[in-house]
């Protein structure tokens, strides 16, 4: 295991810290915009009309509350813990990302911004943002790495159909990290007119807090549903961790319930060498990337490392700062599942339950497949099924040879 080099800890700042992590590491040009965003978000949060409009859209447009589904066949086959799925894949646009896109979209409109920019990896956040912009009549530009545009082409086409402009990013690793850098460059340039609708619990304050708040509905519903069905809290809540938005949303209402294990699954990719995976808590160390202080995969010179995962949404060199804190506190456990395990999990869930998970979510399913047989029948695992796998059909067709025999 790589030794963790703890750098001189940046000074505690007033706002947006999760333990020592988080903060605001941005060019000065963006500071006024971040301060304004924080103030406007606080006002919106306390505004009953804003909350009512968001609640209405989440219910009648996005399809909340999402089902909590008991996987009877899968649980019986595995012979151990009961496995439930929180069905974020059933939401409009096909992933949890719509929760945050609706919240921030309404906020942008409230702030009078007419131009929205976003980054996307798997394309789900891009599609969610394009959808919300269509709904609210806002201009939409989405930055996406060239590698991701190719492997998630279906979502590129969806965004264009929805009226968004998709701008390819050809720098660096041509994936999510580079799309975020390009979106930040656009924001610095057009900060007076543009709202940056960031898609994960990442970046400078207030984004990690705001994005988490917009996804908190996942764990609030989950808690109510599992208490109603089982009369007790789950043994563990399992979620994949890219930037960390679906995981923090699925966990937040359980953080104070110390008996509930919170298990985050990072992408093991195709190997343990730097560059072959996106397991920040296994191979990374604290550092600053794209506005926040958190765990970062980096080389001996502090250059950000390349990453790999079969799932574009987990293929990122850093992780949200609240996760860094939960990791250091030991409140959440972070494990790794690799490309092959995720692909196996897609097939297993599809053929046992008739549910096709996104490759990102399949990492969480893979961990449940590993864990359930080691547990007792009274144990309950809830997997946050963050998205559906339609977008991955190209990759799946190739990897699983579906066009062949």
């Amino acid at each position, binding site marked *: 295991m790589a030794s963790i080099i703890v750098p*001189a800890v*940046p000074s505690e700042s007033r706002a947006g810290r999760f333990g020592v992590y988080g903060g605001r*590491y*941005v060019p*000065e040009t963006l*500071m006024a915009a971040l301060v304004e965003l924080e103030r406007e978000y606080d006002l919106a949060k306390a505004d009953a009309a804003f909350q009512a409009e968001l609640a209405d859209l989440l219910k009648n447009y996005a399809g909340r509350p999402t089902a909590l589904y008991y996987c009877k066949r899968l649980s019986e086959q595995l012979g151990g813990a009961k496995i439930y799925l929180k069905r974020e894949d059933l939401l409009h646009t096909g992933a949890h990302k719509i929760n945050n896109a609706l919240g921030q979209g309404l906020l942008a409109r409230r702030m009078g911004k007419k131009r929205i920019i976003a980054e996307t990896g798997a394309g789900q956040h891009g599609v969610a943002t394009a959808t919300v912009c269509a709904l609210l009549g806002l201009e939409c530009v989405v930055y996406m790495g060239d590698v991701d545009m190719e492997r998630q082409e279906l979502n590129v086409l969806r965004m264009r159909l929805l009226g968004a402009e998709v701008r390819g990013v050809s720098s660096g690793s041509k994936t999510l990290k580079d799309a975020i850098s390009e979106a930040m460059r656009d924001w610095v340039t057009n*900060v007076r007119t543009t709202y940056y609708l960031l898609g994960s619990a990442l970046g400078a304050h207030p984004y990690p807090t705001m994005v988490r708040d917009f996804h908190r509905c996942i764990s609030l519903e989950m808690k109510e549903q599992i208490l109603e069905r089982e009369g007790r809290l789950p043994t563990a809540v399992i979620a994949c961790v890219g930037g960390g938005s679906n995981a923090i949303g699925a966990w937040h209402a359980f953080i104070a319930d110390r008996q509930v294990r919170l298990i985050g699954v990072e992408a093991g990719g195709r190997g343990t060498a730097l560059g072959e995976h996106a397991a920040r808590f296994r191979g990374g160390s604290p550092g600053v990337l794209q506005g926040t202080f958190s765990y970062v995969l980096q080389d001996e*010179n*502090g*250059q950000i490392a390349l990453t790999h995962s079969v799932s574009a949404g987990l293929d990122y060199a850093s992780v949200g700062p609240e996760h860094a804190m939960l990791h250091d506190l030991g409140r959440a456990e972070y494990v790794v599942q690799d490309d092959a395990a995720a692909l196996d999990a897609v097939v297993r869930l599809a053929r046992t339950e008739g549910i096709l998970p996104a490759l990102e979510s399949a990492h969480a399913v893979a961990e449940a497949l590993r864990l359930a047989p080691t547990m007792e029948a009274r144990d309950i695992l809830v997997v946050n099924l963050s998205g559906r796998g339609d977008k991955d059909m190209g990759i799946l067709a190739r990897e699983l040879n579906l066009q062949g025999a």
Partner: protein
Amino acid sequence: MAIRFDHKPGLVIYLTAGDPTLDATRAVAVAAIDAGADVIELGVPFSDPLADGPVIQRAMERAVARGVSLRDVVKLAREIRAARPAAGIVIFSYFNPILHYGLHEFVDAAAAAGADGVLVTDLIVEEAGEYLIEMARVGLAPIFLAAPTSPDERLEAIATHCKGFIYAISRVGITGTQQTMTSDAASLVARIRRWSTLPVAVGFGISNSEHVAQVAEFADAAVVGSAIVGLIEGSTPEAAPGAVARFIEGLRLPQAALAR
């Protein structure tokens, strides 16, 4: 060794260190100083330069690919200091390479190398507590960016913590060349002067003698970055020092722009 603007207008020249090679950057820096640059900013190559436009991005990508590190840049600063004892030298970096080096170790090394100041692109004053303590311990000048979007209370904080000079960003945006100067720059510098008597250098998008002359009307110095980095990109390593020297000499001659 100190940050002083003896020439009027002052010139700050930004170089991406290690592009095309560390030797070439050293030769270009010395030639730039001899041609009248008051301060050399040594840009530390970083894999994810989110405040930079295409020209500096490309330069950084090349330098990162060659493995150029902060350690190399500190060594380069030492060599330039040895060659030109009177010039101003500022290390210009994103925060992560410095954190990874170790804040304490880095300021010791930078001060020992003879650097005068440090500018960290993505470090704002609110997050700079420990950095400021370390910089003060070794007597290095912390230089912060001031932006057209910075409200007065932020400018006051920036002015309070800056030493050496204040770097005023000419316009909202990333680094790169532009055709005309906006009115943002003059009004920003006027606002900064309310809070500080330090020299003010204006940068981002300054690429010819006309821009320099305009900046000279309201600021103490102009920062030229992408135009120089682009010039180096288009030269051979052998020709780069001469080309940069001629370019810098032309920057202080308003008629040069017209004659071109």
